[in-house]
Structures are given as structure tokens and as C-alpha cells.
């Protein structure tokens, strides 16, 4: 199983390789880690999204309004999420905000979740008939969110889940391969200067 630290680092590097700045890539690393910690499929979504934009980097938002529509096809969930988070204190006064045509919307969720913590307010987010209640970045409660009280549960099932990845080996390898594009092949002269170099180690 990949650790959350590995997920953070690889997501950051892959995002940089896909054309995001280092500062935004740092946000992405933390956000994918957060999704995976909440049990949501961050790695799969990021991998698919980065593949989609690799050759055609999305446009950045120039501002956030009550209603946000893309100038071209789709809004980038990362740029939308980062801008939302940065501006959350001002946006709070709008009460509700809409984003249209957002690619891989799950990727926007951790930024809204973080905003919930900063504002100290729960935030309800809905798309494609799925609801997410974001609780101060402490938990994400999803689907069938309503305000009714259930006086009786006919059955409560509790299952302990093994520590395992939410993504396949193939998903991970693809994301990892992209992250490798931030690496540099060392020249022979550089190799000869690294730790342990230039000595017999049988001393």
C-alpha cells in the first residue's frame, strides 16, 4: 500500500510535470492526500485529469463570481478549487456559488473542505445528484445528505476495512511515470560527486 506521504509527493510532482506551477502542485499534493484520507478516489481522478490536460493546459480563472462559466469547454477543478480557497472569506458573503462544466469535480472537493475549516462553517456541495457535506475539513459525509432524523435503524452494519489502496497498480504506475518527468538524468560527472563517491567503501 502507498503511504499518504508517497501519494502527496507523487501527486505534486506529476502535477508539476503536467504544467502546474510548483506552488499549485504543492496544493494538489495535499488535496489528493486529503481525498485519499477521507476514503475518496483522489489518485484515480487526478491521474485521469492530468492525462486529459497534459497537452492542452486548462485556462486559469480570472475571478470568481456567484455564477462561474468556462470561457472554453470546461472549468479546471484545480484552478477553481485553489481560487475558491484563496478567496473563501470574500466568497462567503455570496451565500451560494455555482460552477458550470467542471472537469473531474471530485478534485475540487478538498479545497472546499479546507475552506470549511477556515471559515468554521459546514459547506454543502452538490453535483450529479451526489451531495457532500464538508465538516470543517475533519470529515466528508456524502450521498443522501438530508436533515431528517432516523428514529430507528433496522440494521446497522459495521465493517473494518483493511489498509489498502483505493486505486489500482496501473493507476499508480501511470501517475508515478508522469511524476518522473520532473527528474533529471544525472551526467557521469555528477554521479562521480555524490555521497560515497571517490572512495573505496571497504575501508
Amino acid at each position, binding site marked *: 500500500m502507498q503511504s*499518504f506521504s508517497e501519494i502527496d509527493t507523487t501527486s505534486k510532482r506529476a502535477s508539476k510535470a503536467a504544467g502546474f506551477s510548483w*506552488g499549485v502542485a504543492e496544493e494538489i499534493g495535499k488535496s489528493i492526500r486529503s481525498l485519499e484520507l477521507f476514503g475518496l478516489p483522489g489518485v484515480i481522478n487526478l491521474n485521469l485529469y492530468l492525462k486529459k490536460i497534459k497537452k492542452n493546459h486548462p485556462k486559469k480563472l480570472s475571478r470568481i463570481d456567484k455564477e462561474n462559466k468556462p470561457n472554453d469547454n470546461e472549468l479546471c477543478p484545480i484552478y477553481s478549487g485553489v481560487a475558491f480557497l484563496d*478567496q473563501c472569506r470574500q466568497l462567503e458573503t455570496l451565500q451560494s456559488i455555482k460552477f458550470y462544466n467542471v472537469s473531474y469535480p471530485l478534485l475540487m472537493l478538498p479545497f472546499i473542505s479546507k475552506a470549511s475549516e477556515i471559515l468554521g462553517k459546514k459547506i454543502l456541495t452538490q453535483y450529479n445528484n451526489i451531495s457532500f457535506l464538508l465538516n470543517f475539513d475533519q470529515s466528508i459525509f456524502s450521498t443522501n445528505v438530508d436533515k431528517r432524523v432516523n428514529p430507528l435503524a433496522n440494521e446497522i452494519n459495521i465493517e473494518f476495512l483493511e489498509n489498502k489502496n483505493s486505486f489500482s497498480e496501473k493507476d499508480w504506475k501511470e501517475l508515478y511515470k508522469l511524476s518522473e518527468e520532473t527528474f*533529471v538524468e544525472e551526467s557521469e560527472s*555528477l554521479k562521480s*560527486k555524490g555521497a560515497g563517491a571517490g*572512495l573505496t567503501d571497504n575501508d
Partner: protein
Amino acid sequence: MKLSRLGSFHQSKLSFLRSFIREFKDWNYKRNIFDLDKNGYGTAVYSLEKNQKIYSLVCFAQHINPEERSDRVIATKWDAAFVLHDGIPTKEDIDRLRDNVPRQEIGRVSYKELTLSRANKSVRAFDHVVDSLSLGKQPDINLLSKVGYLYRTTAVYGSGKFGLADRFRIKDRKEINGPFRLEMMLVYLVRQFTFDQVNHIAKSKNSKKAIMLDENIARNLGIGNSTGLGMAPFIINHPTLLHNWIYCREKALKEIRSIEEVNTEDFKFFKDCFVKSKSCIDTWLTDSQYQIDKINSLKTDISKFTQHLEKDCSVKIKYLWNKIYVWAEENLGGECIEYIVSMMMEPYDKIINPLINDMSSEEEKYFHIPGHRKVSELKIILENNYKSIIDIDFKEKNNTTNFWFISKNKEEPRVANRYEEHGSELEQPLAIARDTKQLYEKVLKAKQSDTVAEFLLNNDDVRHVVRRAFIVDQFPYSEIQDNTIGASLVPIDMLRLKLSFFGAVKFDPKSDKWLRINMYQGAPLPHEMKHSNDTWVYNTLN
């Protein structure tokens, strides 16, 4: 916070090796499994236990050919590999670990494992000790004091690497609240394995004549380490942690300098440590001219200070420590000032011990950029906290000579000349001074009443340094006030800063990019921990 000064730091009472021993001295030590063949190859398990909490070191020793023995991070085989397991490993755990731990970076471990390492024998010391013991003689102390250890580690990994437990799983445990506790624990237990292994091989070689390694000799052997650039970016990538380390040191110094009446006992303790420590400097050997010059300057300054101490210092003087510090700043070089600062902490458990738990950091808490703040505020933060950096001219080629990158071969950080090597377009975000200057120039042109969020909509290329600026505003020691890509960069200064906080001694640079060190030399053996004193670091073999 200039690199040259940070690169003059010494171990101190705040160092993690020493705080580890203090924290774990009343834990129960046990050798659970010792299943080695006559050549010393096989499996061993050691544990530390208290109140039903157990940490176990699992060791795998194997045969390697001399040509396979390399301290390079690109090595693929080692004399021994180690992992620290959370709890007591089952047989299934040990089998799983045996398949993975000796392979290190290409193996996988699980969330049940905490730290991972490997080490090679110092062949000249190891073979000499085995041969001597098997013939019924103790080894040559002169040879051992030159080497200082039987094994040399080449990496100690933690915090989620290669599948290891993420820090959040264990961060609330009181006993590991100090920084790098589990890395320190691993190295400490590895040291005991090296002694057990030499005793075992000597006995197997000649069961009638062999004797055990004298504990006085063993105690004064540590564990070596070859350290390269992998460690350098750490102090840039963990700004609040760096702040906490330096802040605790500064806080301790401030409290000590504020003591009006210095107790006679405390002053005597300081002088005793100072005298004992001088013999450690005499055993600090290196071929590096850079380090030889530093050691020579330290020795000269120590002589000056010794005279000053004898002639001019007495507990009758009010604020004696402050007087000593001010005198040192006026009369001595950085290497010796830092040395005296370390020594001044020795008598003061009451000041130092409470600081240890403040040396970790919940870094995630400070990751968020306060987008509602104004550009004008950001400008003031930059001007207040990066004065010397803003003055650097990055159009000057000498100020941008180097770039940091991740090596494709081993996924380790490296530094290279941007005008001679390829790959600078893949530069890592470690040129903080240059990028901060760029941010400052953009901020000067931006509308000052804009929010930082609005500024970032069009300037996300400097987002990483905007984050740092807001961190440095809260944590003044979080930033190295130096250019990490300039032609005059000495990367080992960055290594030494971190290693001194670890508690490493005998810095022995092999180039400007890597060095060897020694850890736990003089430390109590596990069965002696309960009754050990904290000044073990000043013990020497001679």
C-alpha cells in the same frame, strides 16, 4: 541564519540522540531473536518496551562481495538492513520483511513499520575486532579511535517512505514527541547489533579462545553515516520545523544569558564538560582541508577562551554567561562561538528538557495562504524578513550558478551547475532567495490594495514563496537567509546544520557535497541506559 554560521553548529543537550536516550532510559531492553550463522549472517530482533508499548528493530545480515560494498545511494546490496517495527513482529511479519527490507528502496514495507535503514561494515575495523577477539585479545584502541564505529549507515528513512507508516498514525505518542525519535531509536539499536555480531563471529571462529568486546571499548564506538545531498533540501522543505529547532536553541541561550547569579556547581559542570570535550576535538580526524581549517581555528579559539575562562571568569560576576557570550562574539570565530553555546547548555536540565517537545512541528497547520490579506501587507513582510535576500542581484551569473534537481537514477536531490549541466528546466523549488526576489519585484508592481488571492490569480508561478512569506511572518527562523543557488554555496553547511541537531559528531567532509559522521559514540550500552548520565557524548576511547 547565514549558511556559513549554521554550518558551524555542534551537537548539544538539545540534540536528538541525547534526548532519545533521556526519554528511553527507563524502557526495558531485550534481545528477542539472535539467529545468526557462524559468519554472522541471519536475523536478529531487539526491542524496547514500557507499559505494554513495544518497538522492535528487525535486522537482516547477509554476505556481500567487497566489490558490491558501496556507500553510494546507488548501491543495491548492503552488509545489513534494518527496520523498526511497531510492536513485536510475528513470524509472518519477519518473513515478509526478509523479502523486502534487504532490498531497501525497491522493496515495500507496511504501515506497521516505522523507520528503515541499511549499513555497511567498516571492513578494517570490523575484521580487526573479530580477529582480535577470536584470538583472545581486545582490539587496538588507536585503530578504533581513528574509525570510531564498526558499521556505517547510508540512509535512514521514515515518515511514509517506501510504504512506512505516515507520521499522523503515530504523532500523538508522548514518547516519540521529540523530532526523529524513531530514526534515533533505530540507529541506537543497530549499534548494539554490531557489537553482538562481532562477539558472535569471534566466538564461532574460535570458541575456546574468543573473548567478548570490552564494554569500555564498545561504549566508545558509535555508528558511522555517509550523508549526501538527500538531506540538504529537508531544511528548506520544512520551514516551521527549522524554526522550532533554531528557536529552541535561541530560547535556551537567552534564558541562560539572563541568569544573574551563576551557581558554583553549574559553572564547575560547564568547565568539566569543556575540558572533557577538548579531548574529543583531538580525535576529530579528517582529510578535508575545509574541515581541517575549521578545526584548527576552533582549537586556536578554544585556547584563547581557556585563558579567558581562567583569568577573567568567576561566579562572582553578575550575568556571567552573558559576559562570556558577548566576549566570544567579539573575540572568536563562528565555529567556537557555537561550540561554547552548546557547552553553556550542559548544566541546565530545567531549561533544556521542557524545550525538547517544542522541537517538532505540525507543519500542515501553516500550509494555508491567507488570501484575504493585502498585497501591501505581503510587501511589508518581504521587506522585514528578507532584507539581505532582496539585495541580491540575480542577474549576476554567480548568483544563479547552481540548480537543485531530483536525480532520475535514484530519486534523490542533487545540485549541479546550471550553465554546464542539462536539466535546469526541471529545477526543484529550492531557489528560495531568487524566487522571493522575483516575488518582491512582482509585488512592487501590483496594486497594493488587492488581496493576496487576487494577486495570485495572475501570479501563481510565485505561489510557493508567497506561502513561505506568510510562514516566516509567524516563524522568524524558518528561512535560511542565504542564496542556495549561488556559486559560493557549500552544500555540506546545510547537512551539518541538520546533523548537529541530530547530535552527530566528527564531521568529516569528503567533498563539498557529502560527508561522514559518527553517532552515539560514547553512549551508554542498552543495559546501562537506566543509570547513564547525559554527558556521555564527551567520552573518548583514549
